[in-house]
């Protein structure tokens, strides 16, 4: 779910930098007060876990491959703002070291996966009230993967309309939403299910350690 460099028109990613830059500032406000000696080591380990699972390719039906995301477990343990910042760091490292996702596409990837994904997970967990958290955990994780995937597919799908040559040939990502949405969304239905199992395992571990609020 990383958009590489060269897939998005400059007018789109420059606007995305402005919007996501504002979100980064919002997330960083009051950061010092939210970080303490207990949270930082946990945040370090879970961020490193998100980085690693994002690099492990899973074979998917149809010969394609995909990878887990890790935003749901970050949001579950640290809330939207810290999860968004930590996942942006993960995306930056993956882009710089592996070329997985681009620097120009970083604000789009960070906004869709880091911010929207974390917000969806937090919203789902907030709906549980006093009820059994497991269905909300599973649904939240699944949606925290699928909704960002849909957003990214739509962003890619509108690129031919945004930037094209005089003869209509796309200058950047060449497929419209009718191709991009199913091609990106369908594998993420499986990834979302697998990620729900991972988040559940992290939740059980965090619960035994007393990390959950």
């Amino acid at each position: 779910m990383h958009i590489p460099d060269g897939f998005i028109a400059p007018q789109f990613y420059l606007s995305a930098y402005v919007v996501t830059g504002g979100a980064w500032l919002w997330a960083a406000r009051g950061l010092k007060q939210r970080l303490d000696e207990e949270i930082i080591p946990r945040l370090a380990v879970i961020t490193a876990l998100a980085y690693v699972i994002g690099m492990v390719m899973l074979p998917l039906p149809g010969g394609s491959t995909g990878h887990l995301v890790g935003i749901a477990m970050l949001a579950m343990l640290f809330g939207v703002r810290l999860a968004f910042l930590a996942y942006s760091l993960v995306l930056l490292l993956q882009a710089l070291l592996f070329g997985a996702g681009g620097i120009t596409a970083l604000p789009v990837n960070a906004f869709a996966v880091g911010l929207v994904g974390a917000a969806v997970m937090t919203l789902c967990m907030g709906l549980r009230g006093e009820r059994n958290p497991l269905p909300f955990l599973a649904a939240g994780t699944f949606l925290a993967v699928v909704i960002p995937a849909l957003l990214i597919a739509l962003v890619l799908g509108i690129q031919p309309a945004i930037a094209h040559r005089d003869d209509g040939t796309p200058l950047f990502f060449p497929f419209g939403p009718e191709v991009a949405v199913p091609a990106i969304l369908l594998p993420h239905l499986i990834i979302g299910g697998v990620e729900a199992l991972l988040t559940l395992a992290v939740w059980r571990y965090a619960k035994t350690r007393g990390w959950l609020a």
Partner: protein
Amino acid sequence: MAVTTQFRSFLLLVLLVYAPSCLSHGVSLKIERQEAGVIWLQHSDDTPLADVEYELAADGGNAPYQSGKSDALGRVVFIPGDVREWRLRVFSEDGHGIDTVFELAPGATSHSHTGQTYSDFTKLILGIGILLSGFGVMMLFVKRKRR
């Protein structure tokens, strides 16, 4: 009789004039061996990136020199001629791909466009090291603040 001879000559002349244009509606082939550049597109697990859209532009420019789809083995074959620097863009429908500029010197037998210095495993460990050391520094600042 003289008229018939003139008419036949005229017909012959018309045929001669139009014959080349009639032939131009056909398709002719010229096949020869040339030195070609072969780009191998692969997933990170070394499986071929087959049947994906690509666009190849000369001199790192945007005007496409060649475009199409990679073959079943994930190959893109092109005739580089005297051009050394190329820009390759690859797009798969599921949002994967690459946008890279590479150099292919005349007479070169192989070329890796990725130019990887470190293995993926080394980069994975490097990334974890950067993350943990970054948070370690943050921990030091938080401890100092509390004192």
